[in-house]
């Protein structure tokens, strides 16, 4: 028995030794390899799972239509587990062992930052679905395919200023990076324009957000911007608002633009306004491409922003690969030439100076009627 354990141990060690060395490079690269690094569990789980599905569907669709110039694309997935250490190991594995020529990832700002530095060093283009404002700064290989925070701030600010003409507003935010960054950003936009701003913070794991609502009600705000990470705590916040009988209007961030949020909030979400990437009744062609394919492949799942991010990421790379082939630097060059590409998230136009590519028309306003998102005219 003891010797059996030792032989197992030897096998373990030998496998480790195998892991050490580079896998033998194939004579001909048969597929275009794209590395995908996302979190499918934990706090960013819902985002990562959606992004992964969107990416996988994009790969399937492109391959079904004949691939890129006849060659198939292949997605190689690594889970970063929300940990930058794991993320950096994963990206090095994807680039130096699996020999991917492009990377899509990561779900969270913190891992995206860590892996972007490496992608930049190793000269492999990376598209990130994470909204961190400083991500593409001074970088030549890092792109973002989700709207910059400034766009969102403008959209919400304009809603307060031009559409509703309010003067006193509240910001109800969680302490995720998304919530903190946006609440600070919108406050900095509003105050110079003469607004009176009241802020209240809740925990992403909160079971009760009543105190925050009482504060906002006491401060007599005319409207509230609700910003939060995953769906749970913001849904609780809306439920508390309804229970307390508070009718202060709410405009919510696009992170809540998904079915799970509507499910958890129930009828407490009725009538709120939300900034959204999706146009619902006025679907754009890019959105329709995603929606129709998802209806065919995964009819039980309703498309959301995360699917769109994954879907667009792969398509952006594939389009570049169609023109220039397999070289990472040339793919990056070609990406920078993208002009007016209709993706599911929005219309992309990159340039060497602009690695974010989405314009103000990407976002729109929607409202919730009878448990569904409905497009509203500006």
């Amino acid at each position, binding site marked *: 028995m003891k010797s059996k354990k030792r032989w197992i141990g030897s096998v373990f060690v030998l496998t480790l030794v195998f*892991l050490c060395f580079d896998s033998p490079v194939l004579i001909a690269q048969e597929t275009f390899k794209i590395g995908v690094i996302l979190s499918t569990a934990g706090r960013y789980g819902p985002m990562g799972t959606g992004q992964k599905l969107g990416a996988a569907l994009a790969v399937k669709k492109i391959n079904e239509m004949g691939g890129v110039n006849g060659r198939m694309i292949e997605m190689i997935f690594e889970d970063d587990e929300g940990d930058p250490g794991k993320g950096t190991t994963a990206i090095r594995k994807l680039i130096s062992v699996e020999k991917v020529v492009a990377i899509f990832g990561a779900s969270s700002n913190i891992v995206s930052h860590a892996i972007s530095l490496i992608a930049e060093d190793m000269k492999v283009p990376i598209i990130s679905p994470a909204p961190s404002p400083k991500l593409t700064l001074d970088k030549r290989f890092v792109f973002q395919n989700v709207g910059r925070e400034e766009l969102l701030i403008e959209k919400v600010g304009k809603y307060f200023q031009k559409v509703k003409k309010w003067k006193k507003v509240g910001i109800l935010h969680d302490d995720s990076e998304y919530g903190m960054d946006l609440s600070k950003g919108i406050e900095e936009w509003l105050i110079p324009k003469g607004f009176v701003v009241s802020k209240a913070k809740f925990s992403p794991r909160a079971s009760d957000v009543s105190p925050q609502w009482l504060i906002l009600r006491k401060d007599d705000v005319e409207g509230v911007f609700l910003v939060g990470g995953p769906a749970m705590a913001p849904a609780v916040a809306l439920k508390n608002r309804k229970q307390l009988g508070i009718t202060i209007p709410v405009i919510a961030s696009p992170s809540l633009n998904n079915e799970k949020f509507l499910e958890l909030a129930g009828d407490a979400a009725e009538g709120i306004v939300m900034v959204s990437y999706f146009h619902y009744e006025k679907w754009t062609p890019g959105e329709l491409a995603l929606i129709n394919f998802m209806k065919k492949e995964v009819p039980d799942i309703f498309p959301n922003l995360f699917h769109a991010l994954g879907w667009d990421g792969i398509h952006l790379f594939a389009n570049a690969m169609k023109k220039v082939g397999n070289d990472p630097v040339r793919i990056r060059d070609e990406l920078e030439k993208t002009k007016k590409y209709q993706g599911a998230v929005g219309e992309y136009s990159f340039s060497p100076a602009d690695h974010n590519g989405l314009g103000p028309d990407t976002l729109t306003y929607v409202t919730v009627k009878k448990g569904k998102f409905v497009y509203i005219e500006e």
Partner: protein
Amino acid sequence: MSIFGVGVFILFPHLTSEYFVSILTLIGIYSIAATGLNVLLGNTGQISLGQAAFYGIGAYSSALLTTKLSLNFWLAMPFAGIIAAVFGYIVGLTSVRLRHAYLAMATLAFNEIFLVIVEQWGEFTGGVGGLVGIKRPNLWGYPLHSGASYLYLVWFVLFLIFFFNKNLLRSRIGSAISSVRQDEVAAAALGIKVSRYKLKIFTLSAFYTGVAGSLFAHYSRFIGPGSFHIHFSIVLLIMVEIGGVRNPFGGIVGAAIIVLLPELLSFCSKLSFLPHGIRLILNEYSYHLIIYGILLFVIAVFAPGGFVKWISNWIGWSSRLFMGKGNQGWTSLGRRD
């Protein structure tokens, strides 16, 4: 034999992929942090759920000293360790009155407070978004930018700490600590100031962990509070427990297993001869966590010495197998002096 080992060690990072070098680097950094915890757990039996905070204090201190005050890394790193040690001392003061679960809760509270301060003090620490722009250190003008060069640094620091630690335990301080661990009352009766030694252990433990944090900050070149949550404190506990609690190698072995296991599972999930269902399981992070938890429990119950015992037995057995009966030298590797 040792020259051969050193030679292999120097050449190895250049022969292997950047991926494996990064794995070894992470193992090295986590080993230092885990050794820090092992110093505490192994010598006082006390649990700390706040090690992530010391790791974070070391990381932020080093990052801020080098970016905001332009301090040289070679000064910043030990300074970071010292700053962490100061906080270790403060937290250690609670250990005078608190033990076991109560002490664990106090360290946890400390960790939470640390996180809130980092997140709210945004102008200084970068807040929730994190701190960018941390640079790799320069060694006599040569930047340690490549994976291999930083790997040497990390493992060099690890060896320093390891040997310092080993010698510490051999000295008089070591035997005092040993008697405290075994029976606090008897030790006190013998005139050993129990609280003073516990305090020293806390401080030392925090110092090692802070140094690890500094190395981590300059390795990733970006840090955010998300890396320093309770989750990481628990991971360190798991490393120490799986590796082997009172053994000086325990931290290293534990860190190695925790870093390598998911890579191994991921590697196996790509083997095409395995059935699809099994491959799906191997790739899912949720299943990984289930496996670790069960593994930890099994080891704690059936093999409290941790993996170190197994490894030293295995090394002994295989060296006998391959090199004949004469070579017994390696079997003393895991044994405690």
